[in-house]
């Protein structure tokens, strides 16, 4: 079953019912709706390589490797994989930062898929305005097209207060200008572009300016990380989806007095962690419809559940 974006909006409108499906592959999902433009990609986020607290994650050295093994085991391999920030855990030591980035790069070299897109999180880039990140992973904001979909990677962490900044907003405005308002656009970023919970720093201070630029476009979705859990929100007609992290989960917005890292649950290892598959299929109008699929760190045979 394919859940169209229209159906999703309908579901989200009645109270955020869970619509994610268990893991499966495209071949199994084929229902005659497929076209040559259909594709599948994976979003991985908040791997925090270098984090070390056994009470929070006693398998901090193995979690990312297990998730990579799971991705490699998918019957249909993704066209590409996008890491949406906080690849590494922060350190003030520039040498240690680069060491963690080098280790991260070595670990993900085990992925079968070699087309990988990287975005920075504040843990990667806030100390040096993305200098080390760019040495290892390239630009912090950029665009690419894939099978007719425009992807826009927005950096909302390298500026001092984790903003997008006027220069990048101008760049965004320029790249959007020539696009048709019907163009399919997927925005990849680290922090929410809307005010999810500002008092927990779950926002982008000038995110509303980016949303304003995107609002005239009718086929936009935003995928982000930062909050280490699934969250589905619709701003105007634009859905924004956060992904789980791959080092530790965080509490649901405002569910606890403080935003703390949730401790490891020995009865349910890797609880609250995982990655996401995104299946894009040509809808009846010709624009893609997206199905998001949640995967745990290890294949438990039933996805998140």
């Amino acid at each position, binding site marked *: 079953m394919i859940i169209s974006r229209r159906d999703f909006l309908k579901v989200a409108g009645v109270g955020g019912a869970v619509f994610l499906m268990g893991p499966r592959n495209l071949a199994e999902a084929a229902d005659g709706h497929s076209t040559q433009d259909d594709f599948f990609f994976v979003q991985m986020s908040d791997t925090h390589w270098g984090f070390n607290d056994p009470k929070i994650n006693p398998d901090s050295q193995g979690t990312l490797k297990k998730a990579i093994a799971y991705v490699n085991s998918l019957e249909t391999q993704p066209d590409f994989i996008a890491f949406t920030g906080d690849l590494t855990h*922060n350190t003030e030591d520039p040498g240690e930062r680069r060491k963690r980035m080098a280790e991260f790069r070595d670990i993900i070299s085990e992925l079968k898929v070699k087309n990988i897109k990287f975005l920075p999180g504040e843990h990667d880039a*806030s*100390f040096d305005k993305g200098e080390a990140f760019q040495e290892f992973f390239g630009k912090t904001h950029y665009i690419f097209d894939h099978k007719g979909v425009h992807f826009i990677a927005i950096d909302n962490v390298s500026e001092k207060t984790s903003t997008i900044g006027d220069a990048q907003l101008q760049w965004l405005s320029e790249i959007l200008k020539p696009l048709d308002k019907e163009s399919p656009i997927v925005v990849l970023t680290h922090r929410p572009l809307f005010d999810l919970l*500002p*008092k*927990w*720093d779950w926002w982008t201070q000038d995110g509303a300016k980016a949303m304003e630029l995107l609002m005239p476009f009718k086929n936009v979705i935003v995928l982000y990380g930062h909050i280490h859990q699934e969250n589905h929100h619709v701003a105007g007609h634009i859905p924004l989806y956060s992904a789980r992290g791959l080092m530790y989960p965080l509490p649901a917005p405002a569910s606890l007095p*403080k935003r703390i890292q949730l401790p490891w649950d020995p009865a349910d290892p890797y609880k609250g962690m995982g990655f996401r598959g995104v299946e894009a299929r040509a809808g009846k109008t010709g624009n893609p419809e997206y199905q998001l699929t949640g995967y745990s760190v290890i294949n438990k045979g039933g996805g998140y559940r």
Partner: protein
Amino acid sequence: MRSVSGERSAGGLIIILFLICLAVDVFAADQAEQIIRITAKKFEYSPNEIRLKKGVPAVLEFTSLDRLHGFICPDLDIRTDINPGKVSTVRLVPQKAGTYDFHCDIFCGEGHEDMAGTIIVEE
């Protein structure tokens, strides 16, 4: 020659003016700015609980003891950079009683995400 009644009137006026001035002074003292001095260092504010009175102007004076930090209280719409060696000032007149969380919005290290506090506005 001034009349006695005129002298009495002038004396009464002076007394009335004195009482008005006294009342204004008392009112002004009551409305005097609350000045709160706050230091910031990795990864804490001191104090990290700030009590203000609703409707009374307040001045928050920040100094950093180590590096650049930020202060932001989104629900009160106030923020500032906090630079070492410099006093950063935020003025506000809290309009609504309640508890408002603030945090550092300039990434400052391993414990950055715990650098936070609350402003409590009392009736």
